[in-house]
C-alpha cells in the first residue's frame, strides 16, 4: 500500500515537471493513425524533453468546433487546418505564423506546392502533414471482360472517353464512369485547359476554356460514356467503382481504405487523369491538411517541438509504410514503398506524383476566403446541365452572374 502511494507521488511529480501540449484533429480513422504515431514515434522522442502530448480528437463538425474554440480561447496548442477553409482562418490572426520557428532549409524539405498552399500574405501558417490529389482508378476485370484497353497516362479526354463508351456499349449494365456534379472533381479538367479559378484581379471568369471542359464533362452522360452517380444510387465515384456499377473512378488515395473494406477482392489499378487534347496537359487539385499553431498557445516552444516531431521524416515514414496517408516531404518521393507491387502502392504513387510535374496545372483545393459559396454556382450549373434541365449557355450565364454577385459583396 505504502509502495503504491509512493509510486503515485512519483508519477504526480513527473507529471507536474512535464509540459503539456494539447493537439486536436478530426476523428474517424484519423484517431487510430495519430494515436499510433504518437505512441510509437512521437512520444518516445519527446519524453526526453519532458513534453507530454495530449491528443483530443473531435468527432462531429470539426470546423465549427475549431472556430468556436479559437473564438472562446479554449483551442488546443496544435490543430489540423484543412486548406479548404485555411484562408478564412488565417485571416483572423488566431493562428501563429511558423516562420520564426522553422529555418528556410527545414521548410524546403517539404513539397513546395504544399508549403505554398499554407502560405497566406507571405507567411507560413501550417506544416502540411499529408496530402492527396485526384487519380484515375479502373477495374481491370471489367476492362478485360469488355476487351477494352486499359486507360493510360497518354490518354486524352477523347481517347479516354472512347474507352468508356466501349465499356458501356459492351457491358450493358456497367457505366464507364459515374460522374458527380461537383467542382471538386470537374475542376481538375477545367484546370487542364489552362483556366484559372481567379484572375489577377481576384475575379472568376468562366471563359471559353472553362466552357470547353464543362461541355466535355457534362456531355459524358449523353454521349454514352458515363452515368450520373446519383442515378446509380451512389454519392461519389468511388462508391460506383466499389459496387462495380462503374468501371472507373476519379478519387484520391482515400479510396484505398474504402475499397479494402467494401470490395477487398476487386482488382483495380491507378493511372493519371487524362490530358486535355488541346493543351496536352492535365490538371489536378491538392487536398491537404496542416498542423497549425495556436497564436494564443502558452507554450509555443514545446508545441513547435511536437509539431516538428509529428511531421518528421520518421513520422512520415511510419505513416507511409502503413499506407495510411501520402507524405508531404520531398525526400520520400523515392521511398521503396512506392515501388512495392500491389494496387495500393501504385495508387499512392500516382496520387503523390499528381502534385508534381506530371500533375500539370495543379491548384490547392481552396477558393480565397469564399469557400463553398464559390463552388455552389458551378456545382448547380453542372447539375442543371447533367440532368438536362438547362442548356450550357443558360447554366454558365447564371453561374457567372451568381459568382459576380458573390465577389461584389
Amino acid at each position, binding site marked *: 500500500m505504502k509502495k503504491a502511494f509512493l509510486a503515485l507521488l512519483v508519477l504526480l511529480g513527473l507529471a507536474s515537471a512535464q509540459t503539456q501540449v494539447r493537439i486536436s484533429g478530426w476523428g474517424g480513422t484519423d484517431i487510430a493513425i495519430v494515436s499510433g504515431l504518437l505512441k510509437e514515434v512521437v512520444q518516445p522522442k519527446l519524453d526526453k524533453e519532458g513534453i507530454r502530448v495530449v491528443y483530443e480528437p473531435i468527432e462531429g*463538425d470539426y*470546423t*465549427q468546433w475549431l*472556430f*468556436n474554440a*479559437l*473564438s472562446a480561447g479554449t483551442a488546443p496548442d496544435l490543430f489540423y487546418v484543412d486548406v*479548404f*477553409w485555411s484562408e*478564412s482562418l488565417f*485571416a*483572423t*490572426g*488566431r493562428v501563429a505564423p511558423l516562420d520564426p520557428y522553422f529555418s528556410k532549409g527545414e521548410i524546403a524539405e517539404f513539397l513546395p506546392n504544399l508549403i505554398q498552399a499554407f502560405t497566406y500574405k507571405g507567411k507560413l501558417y501550417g506544416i502540411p502533414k499529408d496530402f492527396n490529389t485526384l487519380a484515375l482508378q479502373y477495374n481491370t476485370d471489367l476492362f478485360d471482360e469488355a476487351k477494352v484497353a486499359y486507360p493510360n497516362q497518354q490518354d486524352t479526354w477523347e481517347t479516354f472517353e472512347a474507352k468508356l463508351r466501349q465499356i458501356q456499349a459492351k457491358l450493358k449494365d456497367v457505366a464507364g464512369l459515374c460522374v458527380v*456534379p461537383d467542382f471538386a472533381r470537374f475542376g481538375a479538367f477545367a484546370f487542364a485547359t489552362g483556366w484559372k479559378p481567379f484572375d489577377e484581379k481576384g475575379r472568376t471568369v468562366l471563359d471559353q476554356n472553362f466552357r470547353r471542359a464543362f461541355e466535355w464533362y457534362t456531355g459524358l452522360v449523353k454521349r454514352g460514356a458515363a452515368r*450520373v452517380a*446519383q*442515378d*446509380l*444510387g451512389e*454519392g461519389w465515384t468511388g462508391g460506383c467503382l466499389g459496387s462495380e456499377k462503374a468501371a472507373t473512378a476519379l478519387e484520391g488515395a482515400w479510396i484505398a481504405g474504402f475499397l479494402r473494406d467494401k470490395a477487398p477482392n476487386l482488382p483495380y489499378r491507378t493511372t493519371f487523369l487524362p490530358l486535355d487534347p488541346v493543351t496536352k496537359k492535365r490538371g489536378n487539385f491538392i487536398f491537404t491538411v496542416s498542423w497549425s499553431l495556436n497564436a494564443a498557445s502558452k507554450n509555443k516552444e514545446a508545441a513547435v517541438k511536437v509539431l516538428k516531431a509529428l511531421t518528421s521524416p520518421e513520422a512520415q515514414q511510419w505513416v507511409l509504410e502503413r499506407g495510411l496517408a501520402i507524405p508531404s516531404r520531398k525526400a520520400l518521393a523515392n521511398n521503396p514503398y512506392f515501388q512495392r507491387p500491389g494496387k495500393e502502392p501504385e495508387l499512392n504513387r500516382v496520387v503523390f506524383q499528381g502534385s508534381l510535374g506530371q500533375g500539370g496545372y495543379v491548384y490547392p483545393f*481552396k*477558393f480565397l*476566403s*469564399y*469557400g*463553398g*459559396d464559390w463552388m*455552389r454556382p458551378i456545382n*448547380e450549373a453542372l*447539375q*442543371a446541365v447533367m*440532368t438536362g*434541365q438547362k442548356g450550357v449557355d443558360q447554366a454558365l450565364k447564371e453561374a457567372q452572374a451568381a459568382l459576380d*454577385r458573390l465577389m461584389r459583396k
Partner: protein
Amino acid sequence: MRIKARTLEALYALLLLLPFLFTLTVFFLYAFVRALYFSFTDYDLFNPPRFVGLGNYLTLFRDPLFLTALSHTLAYSFVVTALQTALALLVAMALNRPLKGITFFRTLYYLPSVVSTAAASLLLLWLFQRTGLVNQALSLLLGHLPHLGAFALLFLAFQTAQVLWERRRGLTVPFFDPALALFSVPLALLAAWGLGAAGILEPWEVRVEIPWLPTTARFLGIPYPLWAIILMNTYTTIPTLMVLFLAGLKGIPRTLYEAAALDGATPWVMFTRITLPLLRPVLFLVITLGLIGTLQLFDQVLFVGGSGGAPLEATITLAYYVYGNVFPSGATPRVGLASAAALFLAGLTLLIVLLQRRFGVSERGWSA
C-alpha cells in the same frame, strides 16, 4: 419576525422554479440579448464586433437567397400546417370509432412519428431518387394504363348489368351499391388480368425519370425538393397531432351526439356543430405547434441538400439560412447577419402565431 404564509408559499414556489429559471436566463435570455446585440454589429467570432446599426437587416432584404428562404419558409409552413391538421383530424375521427382491434390500428398509425428525422430523410432520398420507388411506381402505373382502363370499363359493365337485373326484379338499388360492387370488382379484376395474360392488352413502355431532388423546377410555386420534404414531414407529424385530437375527441360527451341524432342531425352537421367547436382548444394547440414547428424547418434541408443533391436555392429555409451564415463552409463566420436573420425568424414566428390566434382558430371554444 414572522413571514406571512402567502409570502412563504411564493418563496417556496420561487425556490422550486429556480433551476428552470436559471437555465432559462442563461440559455434563453442571455443568448437572446447577445443575439440582439450581434444583429446590430459586424462580427466574425474573432475580431471585436463593429456597430453597423440596421445594416445587417438591410443586407438581408437585399440578399436574394434570404428572400428565397423567406418565401420557402412561409409556403412550407402554411401548406404543411393545413395538410397535417386536416389529415390528423380525419385519422383521429376514424380511430375514435368503437371498432374491433382499434388499438392495433392506433399503434400502427402512430409508428411514423417514432422514426427519427434523419432516418425519415434518408428514406425520402431513396424514394425520390431518379431510379427510386416513386419513379418506378409512376412508370408501373402509367405503363399499365390500358389494364386500368379495361378494369374501369369492365367494372362499369358488370355493375350496370347487376343493377339492371336487380331493378328488373323490382328492387331499387343505387348505382354504386357496395354489395353489388363486391361482385363486380373481383370479376372486373379477374377479367382485366385475363386480358393481360392472354396477350390482348400489352403494358406500355413507360420510363418515368423525373429528377425530384436535384432540380429547381416548381409546382404551384414551390420547388420539387421542398414538396418532397412537405410530404415527408406531413407524414411523420400526423400521428403526434392525431394523438392530441384523439384525446380531445374523448373529452366530448357522447350524450351530445345522441341528442343530436335524436333531432335528426346529419354526420356533417354533428361534425361542424359539435365536434369542431368542442375541439377548438385542441385545434388551437395543434395549429400553433404546427406553425412554430414548420417555421423552424432545418434538418431535412440539411439532408436533402447534402446527400440528396438538391440545390440550395430549391430548399433553403430561414433556419438553414441562419446556420449557413454562422458556419459557412470554408468561409469566415457572418455572425452579425445570422443573428439578424435569427431575430427576424423569431419575430416572424411570433407575428404569425398572434395573427393566427386573432383571425384564425383561438383557444376559446363555444363562442362560435
